[in-house]
């Protein structure tokens, strides 16, 4: 036995391709064993990603500006010469220019709290802007263009901001902020952002006694004496210039956003696709094509409107009817604005990072439900190698024994066994495995059984023919004379002579078993909860994404190929030991 291994090792050592193959196999086995350590993610876990992104919708096309900031953007408003968006971690992102040609500038405000809403009054000189957020954070950009913090009475989180120029006094600006538990804050400032009496440096925000205790979620103004506030459970309040009055609402669902163009036209949206229309007299419910929560609504000068929501939901109101827009992305959008003929939406809260191409986070990208392919491939290697090895062992054990018995006894035993081998050659593997799955169910057992039952045929034939030539040799006859039993002669005297061939067949069987496992798993016949290279490709096919997501189908296939070809390289060297005829060449 030791001598045999010595022979085999020498054969491998003298063949450069075989050394290469053996090294690659060692690496693959190491990777498979260490999979839990090397894997960067749990292969079954969906991966989420949060980022501040903007999406342009123009002429039926969408253009994504992914990853403008690291943090989710919550709201956006049209600004002088561009837009201003706000988001988590006090982020303010300013865009200047047109869609095709423009740049984002990120303003570091130094605040940790999330900014939830931003409003800009482009009608007033210097375009004052107001951003509000969690913990009562208020940031104001005065006519000079600098953002500074203002202190709110109380620390209730603020969800909505609006501002409008005064109709009576030039340069005077009305500002409104609404938030949780019925918080409504009002303040009036001059163009330089100073309070009107000019007395104090700290801008006085005045708290209006809340008529409600529900959370107020958004506010919009047509002018300084007309606007709406919306909130939980269908709350709608009207701003009349000095205070708020409750309005009759056609819904009990939470209203998440409101937009007002003038005193005769306003829209409010909310949970479960709720859309409300203000026609100057009453609020009434409209029917729209979306059924999930709608997070933001904006109205353009010409009356067109855009509504956005989670999972890339979008619809536009054009010529009096809502039309669903295909954003092409699963990202969540929270803010919107109308830009001439185009629309702009910003987001995105943690969304399923589906079909991401390779990046530093995900070395081989992600699947259609955001699973990490690199980790799947690593774990898949374990399954592929383990099943391949088990099946190959089974094939070799059955094949060698059948070959030994068949060749040793000959006669009727031989013809019956070889008849069975012939039948095995007529059974196509994949269809046979499918029948097994039909009778039982997909799993490791079915794969090993199918490969094991059908592919010992070649091993049996080859071992048999070698046994046939050994049986006639004198030492076998001598053993028989000495009174050795059949089993002893077969396993003690003959078997060692066919061992090199058995090892060769083990290698060939392993190459075949790995391919077969991949093929059967690709057909969905493998264990459903266990990743193997074939299963990964099966899921890629099922998702339909395999036609474009190259990062999903290339790695598992390349690994199958490398593994099998390495086994081939090694087996070529073993062949020289097993088949003495080749040694002469």
């Amino acid at each position: 036995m030791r001598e045999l291994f010595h022979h085999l090792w020498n054969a491998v050592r003298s063949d450069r391709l075989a050394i290469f193959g053996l090294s690659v196999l060692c690496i693959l086995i190491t990777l498979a064993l260490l999979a839990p350590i090397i894997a960067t993610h749990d292969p079954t876990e969906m991966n989420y990603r949060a980022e501040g992104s903007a999406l342009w919708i123009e002429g039926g096309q969408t253009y994504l500006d992914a990853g403008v900031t690291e943090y989710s953007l919550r709201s956006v408003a049209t600004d002088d010469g561009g837009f201003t968006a706000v988001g988590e971690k006090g982020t303010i992102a300013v865009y200047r220019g047109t869609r095709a040609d423009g740049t984002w500038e990120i303003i570091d405000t130094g605040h940790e709290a999330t900014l939830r809403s931003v409003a800009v009054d482009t009608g007033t000189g210097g375009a004052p802007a107001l951003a509000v957020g969690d913990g009562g954070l208020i940031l104001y950009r005065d006519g000079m263009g600098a953002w500074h913090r203002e202190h709110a009475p109380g620390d209730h989180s603020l969800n909505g901001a609006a501002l409008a120029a005064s109709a009576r006094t030039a340069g005077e600006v009305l500002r409104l902020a609404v938030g949780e538990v019925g918080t409504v804050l009002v303040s009036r400032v001059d163009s330089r952002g100073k309070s009107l009496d000019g007395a104090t440096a700290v801008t006085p925000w005045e708290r209006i006694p809340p008529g409600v205790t529900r959370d107020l979620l958004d506010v919009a103004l047509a002018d300084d004496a007309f606007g709406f506030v919306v909130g939980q459970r269908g709350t709608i309040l009207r701003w009349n210039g000095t205070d708020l009055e409750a309005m009759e609402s056609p819904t009990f669902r939470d209203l998440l956003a409101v937009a007002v163009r003038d005193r005769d036209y306003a829209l409010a949206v909310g949970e479960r696709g709720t859309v409300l229309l203000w026609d100057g007299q009453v609020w009434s419910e409209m029917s729209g094509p979306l059924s999930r929560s709608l997070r933001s609504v904006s109205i353009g000068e010409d009356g067109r409107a855009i509504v956005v929501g989670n999972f890339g939901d979008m619809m536009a109101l054009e010529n009096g009817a809502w039309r669903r827009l295909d954003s092409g992305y699963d990202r969540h959008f929270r803010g919107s604005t109308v830009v001439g003929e185009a629309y702009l939406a910003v987001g995105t809260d943690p969304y399923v990072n589906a079909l991401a191409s390779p990046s530093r986070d995900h070395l081989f990208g992600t699947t259609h439900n955001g699973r990490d392919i690199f980790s799947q491939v690593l774990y898949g290697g374990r399954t592929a190698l383990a099943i391949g090895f088990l099946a190959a062992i089974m094939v070799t054990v059955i094949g060698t024994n059948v070959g030994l018995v068949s060749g040793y006894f000959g006669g009727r035993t031989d013809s019956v066994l070889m008849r069975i081998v012939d039948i095995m050659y007529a059974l196509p593997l994949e269809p046979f495995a499918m029948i097994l799955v039909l009778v039982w169910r997909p799993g490791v057992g079915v794969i090993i059984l199918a490969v094991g039952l059908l592919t010992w045929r070649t091993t049996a034939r080859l071992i048999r023919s070698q046994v046939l030539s050994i049986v006639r040799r004198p030492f076998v006859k001598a053993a028989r004379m000495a009174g050795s039993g059949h089993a002893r002669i077969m396993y003690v005297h003959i078997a060692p002579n066919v061992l090199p061939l058995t090892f060769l067949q083990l290698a060939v069987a392993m190459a075949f078993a790995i391919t077969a496992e991949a093929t059967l798993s690709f057909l969905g016949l493998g264990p459903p909860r266990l990743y193997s290279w074939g299963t990964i490709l099966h899921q890629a096919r099922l998702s339909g994404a395999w036609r474009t997501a190259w990062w999903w189908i290339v790695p598992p296939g390349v690994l199958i190929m490398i593994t099998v070809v390495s086994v081939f390289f090694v087996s070529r060297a073993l062949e020289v030991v097993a088949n003495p005829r080749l040694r002469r060449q």
Partner: protein
Amino acid sequence: MQNVILRRVAGAVFTMWIILTILFFLFRLGLPDPTVALVSDGLSPDDRAIVMQRFGLDRPLHEQYFIYLRNAVTGELGRSFHYNAPVAGLIGERFLNTIVLMIPALILSYTIGPLLGVMLAWKRGSKLEVGGITTGLVLRSAPMFWTGMLAVMVFGIWFGWFPTSGMRTFPYTATGFLDKILTVDFLRHLIMPTIVITLYYTGLPMLIMRNTMLEVMGDDFIEFAHARGLGARRVMYRHAARNALLPVITQLAITVGLAAGGQVVVEVVFSWPGLGLEMFNAVRTSDYPLAQASFMLLAGLVLLMNLIVDMIYTWLDPRISFSSEGGR
């Protein structure tokens, strides 16, 4: 000669009988309730009784077995649950679709493979030989379904050179099978899957041909042919190759069986409406009669093709000594 053919046919019939028997026992004994394999769930009790009676499911097991064999021979294979139509009518055309994809690819690989093998043996020791062997091994190790997926992605989607699924572009009108396949559109659909199958199966005959060529080239008659002053090309291709061909033919017989199984994945990847895809769908929808009949037909196809290969072998080498090499 005739005797040999008769013996081969008898052997094939015997094998088919065994396969049918295995199938019978798998379905009757493997399933907790064998009736699910033949009787659709949604049937009314009356219809159920009729089907049960037709397949003899109310009789003892051995009688069921003979009814099953009789049905298999007469083509009474039950009704597909999914299509609610007799299975026999469904799989006829699928079978032709499978043949029309499989046979050209096999012929191609077993023509190109041996020719390349001769060349490798001829250029023995050169870089070409090492490259050829490595390429052959690599092609054999890339699973067909994967190369198929890559081909669809690269040449079908990115470059848009070839259609990616089916046999014809919809909508089309064809009155018969020949009418359907004798078009340029069909050829365009055929090219990609054919190349994928051919690439996979070319490696083995090439390598086997090279090995046997190297053995044959040491034989006396080759040296004699050289000595007679025949050209090198003529000696290689006419004298040596002809004698080295037998192991390749043996391998062809084995490959036929593998190809009939491998056909399933190719048809799945290319949505080729053949027997393999039909069976794949039948297994997914637990359409037992359809799956069973598809399997019988695929096994029958393997036997038939093996029979043909046997004939070729007998014709090439009247000594008919079977031995196998290499592949599984």
